């Protein structure tokens, strides 16, 4: 059971609205997003429920949900939402707020997803471009699932599907500088 006290000022709602540019209060719980969303069945709270949680000011519960990590930003839901709510922007807002406020879900899948994104960014930082084989390998090592997808690898490599070498931008320096400055901007914002 959740006890709802006096919700004089829903600061969580305000923060999400501000960051996303959407107005969550407009959601009238029609559920069209839920049956649109390709991954709603994997979310512990599908979009409609997340909207309601924000309205109720349930900040921690929202931060600990896996929903925004599963969101593929496919915009299918927002394209159909009768109230034209930018749902992926709301998901993104919760995600960024959770990162900023250092909430970390212990859910294995969420951890995997976060790791993947970290590695991907790392890859770009190092090479300026994505190096697919290395990334797959690194992901598998870091998620302790060494042999995941490995059955695909020989065939893919053989067929030239996944190249062995990699390219990188000449100005790797420029990219690294960008990462540094962007990181600084991120901190300033807080």
């Amino acid at each position, binding site marked *: 059971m959740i006890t709802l006290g006096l919700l004089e000022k829903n600061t969580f709602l305000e923060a999400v609205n501000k960051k996303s540019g959407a107005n969550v209060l407009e959601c*009238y*719980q*029609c*559920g*069209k*997003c*839920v*049956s*649109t969303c390709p991954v*709603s*069945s994997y979310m512990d709270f*599908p979009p*409609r*429920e997340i909207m309601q949680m924000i309205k109720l000011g349930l900040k921690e519960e929202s931060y600990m949900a896996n929903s925004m990590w599963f969101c593929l930003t496919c915009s299918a839901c927002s394209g*159909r*939402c*009768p*109230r*034209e709510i930018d749902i992926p922007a709301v998901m993104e807002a919760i995600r960024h707020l959770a990162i900023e406020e250092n909430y970390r879900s212990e859910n294995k899948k969420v951890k995997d997803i976060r790791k993947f994104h970290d590695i991907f960014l790392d890859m770009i930082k190092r090479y300026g471009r994505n190096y697919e084989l290395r990334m797959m390998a690194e992901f598998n090592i870091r998620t302790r699932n060494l042999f995941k997808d490995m059955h695909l690898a020989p065939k893919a490599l053989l067929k030239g599907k996944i190249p062995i070498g990699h390219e990188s931008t000449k100005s790797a320096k420029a990219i690294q500088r960008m990462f540094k400055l962007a990181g600084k901007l991120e901190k300033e914002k807080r």
Partner: protein
Amino acid sequence: MARVGVFVCYCGANIADFIDVPAVVEEAKKIKEVKISVLYKYMCSDPGQGMIRDAIVQNRLTSVVVAACSPRMHEKTFRKALSDAGMNPYMLEVANIREHSSWVHQKDKKAATEKANDLIRMAIAKSIANEQLHEISVPVTKRALVIGGGIAGIQAALDIADARIPVTLVEKSPSIGGRMAQLDETFPTLDCSQCILTPKMVDVASHPYIELIPYSEVIELDGYVGNYKAKIKKKASYVDFSSCTGCGACTQKCPVKVPNEFNMNIDKRKAIYTPFPQAVPNKPVIDATHCTMLLKGKCGICAKVCEKGSINFKMVDEVIEREVGAVVIATGYDLWDPKPYEEYGVGRYKDIITSLEFERMVSASGPTNGVPIRPSDGKVPKNVVFIKCIGSRDEAKGIEYCSKICCMYTAKHAILLHHKVHDSHAYIFYMDIRAAGKGYEEFVKRAQVETAATYLRGRVSKIYKKGDKLMVRGEDAQIGQVVEVEADLVVLATAVIAPKDNPSLARLLGVSYDKYGYMSEAHPKLRPVETAKAGIFLAGCTQAPKDIPDTVAQASACAAKVCGLFAGDTLKKDPMVSTINNEFCSGCQNCVKVCPYQAIVTEEIPLGHGSKELRTVAKINEGVCQGCGSCVAICRSMAINLAGFTDPQIINEIVAI
């Protein structure tokens, strides 16, 4: 020189306890125009009024100021006292020293007294500038014009005509009946629509006080309440209604087939047709956009078979005029086209139909003899999915409002489906069930329990094809699961929208309409059947979506309003209206733009005395003007004055303190 009488009221203790009234009486006497200033316990009582009457006569007063309660209370009472004494009643001013002073400054008698003095000074100053006014009386033409012959127009016309007031009923299509004629059985009682409607249609046709003009439109309306002049365009029907017997021989033989709009294009009609068998009038018209004779000069079969010689290919549109005193607008509604629902495959899948198409199919006299079928293969569907709020409550694709009737007719459709196809099942996707009305919730319960229709709470997000089934996907929010229903047929409860020519009609009638195109009522709660333009009323869906019970109630209310308006031989009107002094008018027409009642028109007058050249000036129709004063304030030439609230009157008040 003005001679003013001041009458100060104690109002028992209400005024006297908080204002030094004797001092107020004395203060008024200081003003030189004041010829008499007196005090009385209850000014509004008979002796009080008597005092005023006597004083008027004895002191030859030219205006009267009563210092008492709010003019909203007793202005009428005191005006009557004035006229009883032979004085023009509009020479009265009331100083509101009770609501505006004694009751609101009870702790400061000095200040309350000062304020009372000021209020009385202001009233005296104003009254000196008052002019003699006379109630306006306008003649009335006792004939009503009803536009639109759906159930709303039919009911209004019958009720007015039953009061022996002549009615002209103008219907755009070849027959009256409107949407109700297309319905099968109707909620909440499941009466057969045709059975309750057709007798009324016949009554219209035979009523001695009703002139039915089908296949026509109103194209112009001039004048004002009680005195409108309407121009009506009768479209060429190419059939002489006076000789045609309605035998139908022409229709039978006509070789041209056209999609039948009455049956939602499920079947075909001929180029010469009556929209449906019970049509009133039951005379055919030729659809000029399809008849090959009219298009290419070939055919003429109908003329050959007509024994009465009623067919006339040379017929042209005709404009007729009617003088009427009141107008009832009853142009009904349209249904929203669901094409924007691309995610449902609307337009690609034949087995997705609209509610009105379903209604025609289940109608016993409909194109499929009362059995619903799948348009794709003609098979009778078993699993039927109904989706509500299509285009309604959907600002992304349709409109924001709730269409009000679809929750109910969808419940009805579930019941009717079950009646027609016993082994069928209805699934209903809904967001809310809006069943507020007498017997409505009970009716929905019937659908839920007796028919065992499955209600699923959620908006459908996608429909796709699997074999010959349509897979309908939506969330069932009650169990928090996405569900897919295998459907044979999908019925969309499409939004009710305003007829698309409502705005142009509204403009020509001079009434206002809202952003959706519905005609606007004068007040949403207290004047729901009147428009802001006096003498023009609204009935049925032309004002907002509503079901038959509400439509009929509103239509009868319109009739009552019309009868009320026509109760006397003339209409009495408050004289506090504006007039334009055309000598000052520069012709800028700013006033024309601001008048909320379109009371101001322009006219041409000679440029100077005896000059042949003309100039444009504005003119106010006192029958239409409601006396708001907008035009007065906007006129830069100071050409307009509002009786009772003239510039001199108000300036006098301002400087009187």
